[in-house]
């Protein structure tokens, strides 16, 4: 009998402990909603848009990495979200919503993240999930992730079949293409709508002159500067 009680009590202890562990895992979430637009208009695949420079543009592919999310806290320290690497495909709804676990009992001041994949991941072989090279966002002839792909057609584009192709990447100095972003968050805010306005990119890039960049270098680095300006919050 005594033995039985002992077993039951130890089992109960274990159960409470497990429940405690389980409750620790239930965390509040912060949601990131990505809203791809062209000048305020919802971005659709193979739909015509006109840029300020007069280029009529259609998009077939817009993909980019948002990575290394962290929250800046009230005490200026950072709460990092481990392994937060997201491949966003603007034409795939399921990638436009990402959920981040909020730190417990801490005030969040800012959400910080990178556009692109950090260099160390471009130097450490084959990774899985959103970083799997099978996603087509990894260069073959020269190692490194492609941080962003923008592909489509424009009647003003002198390339074959009027196609424009921007593959922005490169992790070696001086031509780095990783760009950092951060947005302030108000008290109790639990979501952020991240607007990606393709128009701001094509207002600055004239497809007549510049329609294909597919290697790391000065051009890619400049395009990364232009690309990061597409991001704002609602």
């Amino acid at each position, binding site marked *: 009998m005594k033995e039985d009680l002992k077993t039951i009590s130890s089992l109960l202890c*274990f*159960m409470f402990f*497990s429940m405690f562990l389980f409750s620790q895992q239930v965390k509040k979430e912060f949601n990131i909603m990505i809203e791809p637009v062209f000048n305020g208009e919802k971005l659709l695949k193979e739909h015509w848009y006109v840029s300020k420079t007069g280029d009529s543009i259609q998009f077939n592919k817009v993909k980019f990495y948002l990575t290394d999310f962290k929250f800046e806290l009230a005490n200026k320290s950072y709460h990092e979200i481990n392994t937060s690497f997201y491949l966003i495909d603007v034409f795939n709804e399921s990638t436009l919503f990402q959920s981040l676990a909020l730190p417990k009992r801490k005030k969040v001041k800012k959400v910080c993240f990178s556009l692109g994949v950090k260099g160390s991941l*471009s*130097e*450490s*072989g*084959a*990774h*899985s999930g959103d970083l*799997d*090279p*099978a*996603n*087509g966002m*990894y*260069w*073959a*002839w*020269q*190692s*490194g992730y492609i941080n962003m792909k923008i592909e489509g057609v424009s009647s003003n584009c002198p390339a074959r079949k009027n196609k424009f192709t921007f593959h922005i990447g490169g992790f070696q100095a001086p*031509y780095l293409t990783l760009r950092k972003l951060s947005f302030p968050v108000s008290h109790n805010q639990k979501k952020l709508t991240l607007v990606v306005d393709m128009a701001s990119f094509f207002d600055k890039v004239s497809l007549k002159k510049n329609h294909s960049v597919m290697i790391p*270098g000065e051009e890619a680095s400049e395009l990364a500067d232009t690309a990061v300006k597409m991001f704002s919050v609602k």
Partner: protein
Amino acid sequence: MMKRITCFVGVLLLLSFIGLKVSSTIFTYPEYWPKPIYDFAKNPVTEEGFQLGRNLFYDPALSKDNTISCASCHLQASGFTHIDHDLSHGIEGKIGTRNSLAIMNVAWSSSFMWDGGINHLEVQALAPLTNEVEMAETLEDVVRKLDTIPYYKDLFYKAFQDSTITGQRVLLGLTQFTVMLNTYNSKYDKYIRKEGGGQFTAQEKNGLKLFKVNCASCHTEPLFANNEFKNNGLAVDMTLNDYGRMKITQNSKDSLKFKVPTLRNIQFTKPYMHDGRFETLQEVITHYTNGIKQSETLATELNEAIVLTPNEKVDLLVFLHTLTDKDFLFDKRFSFPKELITQK
């Protein structure tokens, strides 16, 4: 609750089982060699992973039209390069711009390809796989193709304890095969280890001496390579206009520099140089003694002319033949897996 605990314990057991399983590695090398550069922690070599990689290496399913495999340009009997072909071949008879490199002792390489554009062994296979004039395929498609083949589901399960095929696993599997292609049983190695079969003749001894003076600064023992890029004084082939490493670094200081390749099994890896311009080792040696073309980026090691008498040239050649490792070139573990035909 009990269920959850049982489940928890089960997962723990499973994890420890997996932990045990992958911690065994079959990768070995002579203890007097430097430590490998490849980090095995993320991808320990197991017999099952090696066999998966071996099947992938020999399977033409990796090319767009299912006609060529890695082995098409990397044949075992020639040190895993394409004997008698100056430039690499691809699907539909397409021809590349460089001579396929030998695959040997790759765990000691810090970068890959003639221009060093690839920085890690695991992602090396992406280059030939996706090159339009080589296999012209995508990793995504390879995953899709393999996923329909029960034979591969089984191989992936054995290698990763999970039959899900991913791009990462295809690459890790291939790596487990190529990283095992190690050669260290040549006559030279036996000479160094003072083993039977390693008695050098006077000619071979003199060849080694000449080698140490004239060649070893770049083709450094025991790997006979140094992980560097050098301009070895070859005139530019105007039909290719290949400036090598400069394409990767976009730095004019790297103009005409190419990877220093290993000389192991050099007797069988002909033709030689990044564009396969030399058919014989005699031509290679003559290039170094009489053919160096001066240019701004020429390797400093070649500033001073290499002078060899005809007899010394023969001795050097005889020494180079001691780097042949027949155990490696004919090792059945590295050859075509017959199951690929009988069971796939």
